[in-house]
């Protein structure tokens, strides 16, 4: 690439990205997707770069996806998870991070249950910081891989009617997706129980529905979110059964959507709670493609940030 418009040291969220930057990541991911289809799935692009996967919260999917992306780019990845670390000994987050910094990694991929942690690290560390999910705030690479998948199926994002359904309040995926999809010109509708809808969410530029049928009527894309009833106080929702009756996506209810609708889910799924198995495994589902694309998108992010953080083209 001769001119590299990517200038950010960190990827903290979608909120601050321009549509040009989003498109750059998606376009870059296109070229990396091909790597995953080769028999030998490895390129030397990030040889000699060290990436620390700093996970303070359990994660299988996102961490594996980053790890595979790092391996395919020939970067040296190090896994640091809170269970085996000094965190339990009372070390502060900043001290942990400064210790890692002292080992001079190029990039730090961080997942934490508290919003703002990647921002706190980015401000104080030389290494580029990639937010792999901070509490209910943002999960930018998930939104990017979702957009990548949508673009692949629909050829565009602009003008699409996209419904996101589930536990909006506790979801970082939804926040990153709202930013990304509305920046790219989609029409976003959120739906879920009123007790799981965060205050003033319509100010983020979305429509809100409290009825599943209304929310999915005419939808091009339906994104189901994992419902974690255990994360709410018992006052938020009575039972998984009642949830499924009101907001569970079934084959029958899907008839309200467009004929060529695609069904997405960031995982992990609760079958029989937010989504029926025949929908999750049905012909409209692109859920496993999302996972496949996740690797390419994360390769693109790692690639772009490793250049920017080193001041290289």
């Amino acid at each position, binding site marked *: 690439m001769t001119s590299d418009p990517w200038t950010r040291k960190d990827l903290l969220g979608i*909120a601050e990205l321009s549509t040009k930057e989003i498109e750059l990541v998606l376009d870059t991911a296109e070229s990396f997707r091909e790597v995953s289809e080769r028999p030998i799935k490895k390129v030397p692009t990030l040889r000699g770069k060290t990436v620390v996967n700093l996970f303070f919260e359990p994660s299988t999917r996102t961490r594996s996806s980053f790890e595979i992306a790092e391996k395919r780019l020939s970067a040296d990845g190090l896994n640091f998870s809170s269970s085996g670390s000094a965190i339990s000994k009372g070390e*502060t*987050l*900043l001290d942990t991070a400064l210790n890692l910094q002292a080992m001079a990694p190029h990039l730090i991929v961080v997942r*934490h249950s*508290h*919003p*703002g*942690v990647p*921002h*706190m690290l980015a*401000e104080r560390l030389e290494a580029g910081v990639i937010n792999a999910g*901070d*509490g*209910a*705030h*943002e999960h930018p690479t998930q939104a990017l891989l979702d957009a990548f998948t949508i673009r692949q199926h629909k050829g565009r994002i602009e003008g699409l009617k996209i419904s996101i359904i589930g536990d909006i309040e506790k979801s*970082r995926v939804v*926040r990153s997706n709202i930013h990304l999809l509305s920046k790219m010109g989609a029409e976003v509708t959120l739906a879920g129980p009123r007790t799981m809808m*965060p*205050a*003033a*969410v319509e*100010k*983020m530029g979305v429509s809100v529905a409290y009825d599943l049928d209304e929310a999915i009527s005419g939808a091009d894309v339906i994104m189901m979110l994992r419902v974690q009833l255990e994360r709410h*106080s018992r006052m938020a929702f009575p039972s998984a059964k009642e949830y499924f009756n009101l907001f569970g996506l079934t084959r029958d209810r899907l008839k309200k959507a467009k004929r060529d609708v695609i069904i997405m889910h960031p995982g992990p799924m609760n079958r029989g709670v937010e989504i029926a198995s025949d929908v999750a495994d049905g012909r409209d589902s692109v859920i496993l493609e999302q996972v496949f694309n996740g690797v390419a998108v994360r390769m693109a992010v790692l690639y772009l940030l490793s250049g920017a953080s080193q001041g290289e083209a």
Partner: protein
Amino acid sequence: MKLLVRGGRVVDPSQDLDGPFEVLIEDGHIAQVAERVKGIRGAQVYDATDLVVSPGWIDMHVHLREPGQEYKETVRTGMLAAAAGGFTSIACMPNTKPVIDNRSVTEHVASEAKKDPHARVYPIGAVSKGQKGEELAEIGDMVSGGIVAITDDGLPVRNAELMRRALLYAQHFGIPVIQHAQDLDLSRDGVMHEGEWSTRLGLPGIPGSAEDVMVARDLILTEDTGGRYHVAHLSTGRALDMVRGAKARGLAVTCEVTPHHLLLTDKAVADTGFSTQTKMNPPLRTESDREALINGLADGSIDAIASDHAPHHSDEKNLEFSLAPFGIIGLETNMSLCLEKLVRPGLISLSRLVELFSTGPARILNLPGGTLLEGTPADLTLFSLKRSVTVRAAKFQSKASNTPFEGWRLRGRPMATILGGRIVGTPPTA
């Protein structure tokens, strides 16, 4: 021992004074306030040309952290911060370790303050033993030891029956019951105001209703008991409306607001990228709440401005936003912030600001200050409307540096603090 303060503009809302007057201080008391005072022979002269001379300022909501958390602040450093910020009196909250819930802890704080007095320190006692919200503390005994009000502050009185009893019992001593009005079930694990910005940032919210519900309950209890009730750091427009309504019905209700709730909104959490200096309780509210509070200053519904000076160590504030403690300090920024942001744009008059920081709190807590009437203790605050200051926490007298106002350039600043006729605070030049 005489001190003559001459050349300044005297603003004393307690006497409706605003003009070029001289103040003569004799033996620690105000002897005369006049255009030209008499009997100045032998007096030391303080040239207050270009300065405002007002009754000593009072911050009625300060956390001194002593006993128990002296690494955050002590009575001494709190007094020094007060003197540097133009405050001659501070009232300190009982959430120390141990809690100020008995006479001996009360007297300990009072005696620490008398060792090298830089401000008058008025302890506020707990409502309940150990601030546990179960049984009344020995309030009468604490009054003998010097408390001027009761509150469980950060642990609001949750039990309505206890609140009712406290409002009744405090009447024996003529002291107000101060409430940090917050329904703990509604505020839950919230760390900022619940609204657009908590939603955007994914942080758990504290709804405005957490404050409103508690104020509503307490006003009903105040009406039934005939007690005196004071809302600490009131932060919502709706709570203010209720207080305004209660006052109109003749209830003995007062309230204070903080400079940060008057100047900042919940958006600051996003604008500062999750800075823990924007984390306080009650949280920064919305723009419409902020505007309502400004209107409340102007229309007289608000009785005092107080800082809720809450010192924390930088190690504590340098944690994840959700884990960092609530609170910021204010003794050394109160004045400049209010002069620059409230008086200079004409939102309130200078005399009204002086009232909110002196006569107002003195009336609420029944303190001897807040006036320049002849015969009262000579507590004066001298300040400039013209000189500027840049907020630099590193220069604070306070042990703590947790402020969201670092680097703010402000016009108007304290110049001298006179306590009982003695100059105790001459802030460093900046």
